């Protein structure tokens, strides 16, 4: 018997701003994306009765979206409203909660919005995420042991995770590089991508170290921009202007990290739990997935996530990607817009937006087989994970 939630909702609207060094406030960026999404869906603003909001890093550093976005947008008919944060897993989660609310009859057209603007004029991309290193206050208590060890930024935990995978399983630097090169190839076909110059494996190895084993080209971009997505009931979606992208499955997994022996957060992520739930709901397995949009804050994140979704055994992610199967022409097209590494970094909205573009068949020269699309989001040093399984086919 089909799962009762399979295909009950669909994505009917998508709006995106230009991405990169766009110096505008997060409300302004969000409003542009929202206006585009509402027009894209053929709706009027008053049709929106659900609003879910996710601020990016500016939610922590200042200037990020708040619940005040409702009034900036002038939304008066809301029956569902929340400001959510589970890091990079939030975008997929917003679509999940929208689907649940629609199924429960609590809302009809739910708007999911992400905006971020960490880039400031005259400052580096790294400065947007460096955090503790520039804090003039002396850190309090044992939390200060990180800064005292020079353990800064998000780059450090991901480098430590990748190093452990390499030590346990023999994963090579080349394996990470092949992921970066493949995604850049995809980005050359994406007009929205920030980085569209092709790169070679030699370029990858020549790019400067950030923290070994991560080169600059292992790390995602930093972007200002916004993405808005509208989720609607499936029976309405079929009469709306865009090809509906149906939500066939969804799941979450959050194993946590105890900070002591027994936790394997570096190499075994919440994706394994999320995959079980989502595959069961959608009635599919890894061999049915025709393309992947995997959260790729770092190349390593792609590799470990593919393992946890069962595309290969644990530890075999390196050899799995070695033949270039993730890139254009490969057998498992992945991050077909260039991803966070080469296109734009809108947290979980990066994989979600490309999943929608592919699901609609609007990928242009980068369009791939879109029957079953896996969209994932993770964050918090691989701790938080959520996913969607999307399809152009009704359930």
């Amino acid at each position, binding site marked *: 018997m089909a799962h009762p939630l399979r295909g009950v909702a669909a994505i009917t609207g998508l709006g995106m701003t230009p991405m990169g060094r766009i110096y505008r406030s997060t409300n302004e960026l969000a409003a542009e994306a929202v206006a585009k999404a509402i027009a894209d869906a053929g709706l009027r603003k008053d049709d929106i009765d659900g609003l879910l909001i996710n601020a990016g890093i500016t939610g922590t550093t200042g200037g990020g979206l708040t619940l005040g976005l409702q009034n900036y947008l002038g939304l008066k008919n809301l029956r569902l409203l929340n400001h959510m944060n589970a890091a990079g897993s939030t975008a997929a989660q917003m679509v999940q909660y929208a689907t649940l609310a629609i199924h429960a009859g609590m809302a009809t057209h739910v708007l999911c919005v992400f905006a971020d603007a960490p880039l400031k004029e005259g400052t580096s991309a*790294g400065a947007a995420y*460096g955090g*503790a*290193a520039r*804090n003039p206050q*002396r*850190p*309090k*208590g*044992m*939390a*200060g*042991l*990180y*800064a*005292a*060890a*020079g*353990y*800064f*930024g998000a*780059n*450090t935990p991901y*480098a*430590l*995770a990748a*190093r*452990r995978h390499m*030590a*346990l399983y023999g994963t090579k630097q080349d394996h990470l590089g092949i992921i970066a090169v493949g995604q850049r190839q995809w980005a050359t076909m994406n007009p929205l991508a920030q980085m569209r110059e092709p790169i070679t494996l030699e370029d990858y190895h020549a790019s*400067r*170290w*950030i*923290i*070994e*084993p*991560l080169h600059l080209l292992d790390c995602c971009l930093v972007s200002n921009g916004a993405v808005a997505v509208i989720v609607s009931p499936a029976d309405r979606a079929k009469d709306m202007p865009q090809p509906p992208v149906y939500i066939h499955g969804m799941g979450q997994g959050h194993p946590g990290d*105890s*900070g*002591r*022996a*027994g936790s394997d957060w*570096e190499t075994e992520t919440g994706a394994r739990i999320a995959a079980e739930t989502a595959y069961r709901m959608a009635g599919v397995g890894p061999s049915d997935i025709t393309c992947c949009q995997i959260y790729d804050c770092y190349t390593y994140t792609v590799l470990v996530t593919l393992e946890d979704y069962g595309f290969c055994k644990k530890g075999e992610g390196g050899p799995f990607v070695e033949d270039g199967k993730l890139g254009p022409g490969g057998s498992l097209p992945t991050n077909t817009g260039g991803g966070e590494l080469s296109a734009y970094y809108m947290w979980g909205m990066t994989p979600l937006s490309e999943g929608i573009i592919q699901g609609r068949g609007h990928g242009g020269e980068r369009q791939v087989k879109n029957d079953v699309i896996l969209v994932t989001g993770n964050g918090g040093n691989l701790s938080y994970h959520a996913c969607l399984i999307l399809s152009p086919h009704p359930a």
Partner: protein
Amino acid sequence: MTQPTIPVPEPDEASRPFFDGAAEGRLMLMRCIDCQTWRLPARQHCDVCLSDRYRWEPASGRGRVRTFGIMHQRYHPAFQVPYNVTVVELEEGPRLPTNLVDVANEAIYVGMPVEVVFERYDDVTLPRFRPARDL
């Protein structure tokens, strides 16, 4: 101009036994009185059994490199790049962010046995680790 100093933590009430112990050459950890689980950082509740009964106990000071990275990015002027950022898993279980000393970056490996040493910075002493001398 004075040499920039690393951002050393300021002990707070919860963590004071850790820093006081370090100043006396002992690595002190919190331990749950009810389920005996060692923990770090300092916090009121045991994350295994949620008991709030604990005591501070000296740890062995021995552990192994859980994982490490070699930092090349200059985030803070006091750190001379490249330097190692290492997570040591103590024999008692907790993992500690730290740096290895008395070892070349190229010689560090996952699983390497290490032992604690203490480095004093003005008013605070911090645990660092070096390759273990007695196995």
